[in-house]
């Protein structure tokens, strides 16, 4: 069976762009803290979601709704409403991470297909079996800390589908367990749906270039003409041991296009492109390129060259195959 290409949409127009560029599925979220891309001006109202699903279905594509943050204890209404609105819109699946949200979905929305978000960081057969047996989860998004060999072994030991990130921004920490943003700003992707919330980010220019500050902490400084990255702490430059460097990770972007054939061989069902915060230009170009790559692999090619085509769209202007090839760790 061919690989399913799961593509990002932060707005209704990006959804249409993704579908028209060849996405098999599109993932998107509501305009609140229930999804892990809760940026100002982004995401869908319940009515826009209904219209988005209608458009996607009319073009033969699916819509997966991300409700993938962790619900606040005693204040789950937003997550319950998101599940109800996703079902009402006719979503093909919901992508969840939190146990309480999974439980509510399994109990009150038994017809919704459940996918486990990367935020749940389920990376062992035991953890995945727990989610599958307890809530009926049908697909698990693989944490980006596994190699292709590890995913192949995992697939042999589980009987749910797996989805792996193939392109886009990269969290070098295990998803769902990173507290860097909460430490600096009090807000995190896990609870509020944003890493480095923009209201805490400030850029200032002086003769030495551009300084990036997160809630008052200077986390990087770019010289004129030097490639920039996202204002996240994991990609900041800090001084330690007398020298300044990227302590956690360089501002690089994931591009595992060269591994598409290996992913198919490892038993992966779907390939995911990151970037719900990106515009239509990015969505169109990346989706079209990857759809051609997936079709080429389907038709028997063994390798595709995607890196050069998309070089200008990526963070820091550089790309990596991440943990999929062991050398990265």
């Amino acid at each position, binding site marked *: 069976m061919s690989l399913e290409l799961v593509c990002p949409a*932060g*707005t*209704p*127009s*990006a959804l249409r762009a993704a579908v028209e560029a060849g996405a098999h599925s599109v993932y998107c979220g509501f305009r609140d803290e229930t999804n892990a891309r809760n*940026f*100002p*001006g*982004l995401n869908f*109202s319940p009515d826009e979601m209904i219209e988005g699903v209608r458009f996607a279905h009319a073009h033969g594509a699916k819509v997966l709704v991300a409700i993938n943050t962790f619900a606040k204890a005693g204040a789950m209404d937003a997550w319950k409403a998101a599940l109800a609105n996703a079902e009402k819109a006719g979503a093909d699946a919901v992508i969840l991470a939190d146990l309480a949200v999974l439980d509510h979905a399994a109990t009150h929305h038994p017809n919704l297909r459940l996918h486990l978000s990367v935020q749940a960081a389920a990376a062992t057969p035991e953890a995945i079996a727990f989610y599958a047996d307890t809530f009926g989860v049908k697909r698990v998004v693989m944490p980006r800390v596994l190699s292709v060999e590890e995913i192949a072994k995992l697939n042999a030991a589980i009987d749910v589908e797996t989805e792996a990130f193939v392109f886009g921004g990269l969290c070098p920490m295990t998803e769902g367990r990173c507290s860097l943003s909460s430490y600096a700003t009090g807000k995190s992707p896990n609870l509020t749906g944003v890493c480095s*919330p*923009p*209201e805490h*980010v*400030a*850029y*200032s*220019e002086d003769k030495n270039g*551009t300084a990036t500050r997160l809630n008052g902490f200077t986390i990087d400084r*770019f010289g*004129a*003409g*030097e*490639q*920039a*990255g*996202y*204002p996240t702490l994991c990609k900041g430059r800090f001084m330690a041991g007398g020298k300044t460097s990227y302590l956690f990770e360089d501002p690089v972007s994931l591009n595992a296009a060269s591994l598409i054939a290996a992913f198919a061989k490892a038993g992966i069902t779907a390939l995911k492109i990151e970037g719900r*915060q*990106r*515009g*239509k*230009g*990015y969505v169109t*170009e990346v989706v079209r390129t990857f759809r051609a790559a997936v079709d080429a692999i389907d038709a028997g090619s063994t390798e595709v060259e995607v890196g050069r085509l*998309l*070089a*200008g*769209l*990526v*963070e*820091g*202007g550089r790309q990596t195959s991440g943990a999929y090839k062991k050398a990265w760790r």
Partner: protein
Amino acid sequence: MAEHFRGELPRLLRILAAPAGFLPLGPALTLAVRRFAHRKPAVFDRLGEYGKCSFLIEPSDLDFSFLMVPDGVRAEVKCMRGRTSQPADVTVRAPLLVLLGLLDGTLDGDAMFFNRAISVSGRTDALVALRNAIEDAELTPADFVGATGGLGKLVDRSVIGGLGLARRFTGSPISGEPS
């Protein structure tokens, strides 16, 4: 001679564009944005409270700038000659063709930022909201002049074609390729 950056208008075009600073661009753009807000209020809902923020937009290759408060049907756009010290919540600076590419969605804002084709300062949350609202608005050149139907299509075709040519001519980024 002024330094010429990739994607900026050549000197001759800058000189030709200079009189535009004297035209009543501000009132015309104010009218266009308000008309657009009447037609597509959802775009301004997406902007929410950030509609009340002020955005100073400086085409780096021209000697005038725009101050915009995109508050739906109460929107205001002022056009000012020279560089201004006018306080604004957000300042965005880029070559004119890059700014137009961001407006019509041809160019990706993040890619332009990574490649340093644009520089920004001020309230990042307001800028992110504006950029996402513009992204979803699917603006076309006809929206700015209020043209609809066949005339709208003609305006779009000519302006988009013209911009494509201008980008190739000046070496402006066409998609996200590194500058």
